[in-house]
């Protein structure tokens, strides 16, 4: 059996038989086959095999189509369907989470205006509604009536004088037993000279 040495073109013989080659390649193969006995013989076999392609009855197309799953035409309902609602819900969660995070980072505590209490000596009595000893940030609080321009802060001990510190310690001794995480209702605080609350 004679062998072809141009295997690149020999490989294309089945495509040549089925007519799947473009014009330029078809011409190259035609030219090669005219000079190659091995490819000429192979081409005879390929044409015989191709011609022997069995003829089968065409299946019932309508029956097959009737059994196929149907595809819904995409419409307005599909556009604003479950996916859209899921996206809206996810967006809402992200916004709520972001806002919460932002508030937590700012650490702002809104302290409502405190009504003046009769019988206090410095004229600016306050009641601590929220324990804020765990923060070092200064929180601006609207000054009570009659003490405008006085700024106050929580937890800044460096502003206190020796006497003020001593008084605060004495008061703390009286509160011994109260849990540190609970507010201390009814304990009056006074504004210090440095703006702190005592």
């Amino acid at each position, binding site marked *: 059996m004679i062998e072809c040495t141009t295997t690149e073109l020999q490989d294309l013989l089945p495509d040549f038989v089925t007519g799947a080659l473009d014009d330029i390649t078809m011409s190259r193969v035609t030219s090669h086959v005219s000079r190659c006995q091995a490819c000429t013989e192979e081409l005879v076999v390929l044409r015989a095999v191709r011609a022997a*392609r069995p003829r089968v009855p065409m*299946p019932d197309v309508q029956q097959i*189509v009737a059994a196929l799953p149907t595809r819904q035409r995409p419409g307005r309902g599909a556009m604003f369907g479950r996916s859209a609602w899921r996206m809206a819900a996810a967006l809402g969660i992200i916004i709520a989470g972001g806002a919460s995070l932002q508030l937590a980072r700012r650490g702002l505590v809104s302290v409502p205006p405190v009504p003046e209490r009769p019988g206090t000596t410095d004229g600016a009595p306050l009641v601590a509604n929220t324990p804020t000893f765990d923060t070092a940030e200064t929180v601006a609080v609207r000054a009570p009536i009659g003490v405008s321009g006085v700024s106050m802060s929580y937890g800044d001990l460096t502003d206190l004088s020796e006497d003020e510190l001593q008084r605060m310690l004495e008061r703390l001794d009286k509160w011994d037993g109260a849990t540190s995480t609970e507010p201390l209702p009814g304990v009056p605080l006074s504004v210090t000279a440095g703006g702190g609350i005592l």
Partner: protein
Amino acid sequence: MIDATQQEDASLDRALIEQWKAGDQRAATSIVERHAEALARFAGRLGVTDDVDEVVQDTFIRAFAAMDSFRADASLRTWLFTIERRLVIDRRRAQSRRGHHVEIDDAHAISGFDALDALMADEAAQRVARAMARLTRMQRDVFTLRVQEGRSYKEIAEILGSTEGSARVHYHNAMRAVREYLDD
């Protein structure tokens, strides 16, 4: 180099698939018309004799149900052949489990192929069929897909779950065997 016609076929298939996805059921009819006969022929080569129509129908049902997973750069007919072959293997396994005696080796495929002889009109065609019946199952599948269905080695490897190199070797061995038989 190759595929002036096949590329047109592929783009037409893609267009029909998009139309069907958009809700046009007529596109499904066109797709079935284009590929049903080739699938029936391939089912015969896989050894299916009695229920070819059912196999072809089930192949289309599976394909349309999974159409979203079809790669746009692939050939639809190659994909359909792959589905049909898996379907035939699944059916044979199921029949085996139910206790039916089903041959799934070469002998079965040969008897299935022989059944097609009756459909071949002339003596030359029957002689080719006898030559091909002597091939191993893999050689015959590769050879018919390459010569009669015009599939590339890459597509054949995809359909048969093999490699391109292996398909090429099987083709050349099949060609040598058929030529020797026909030359005698």
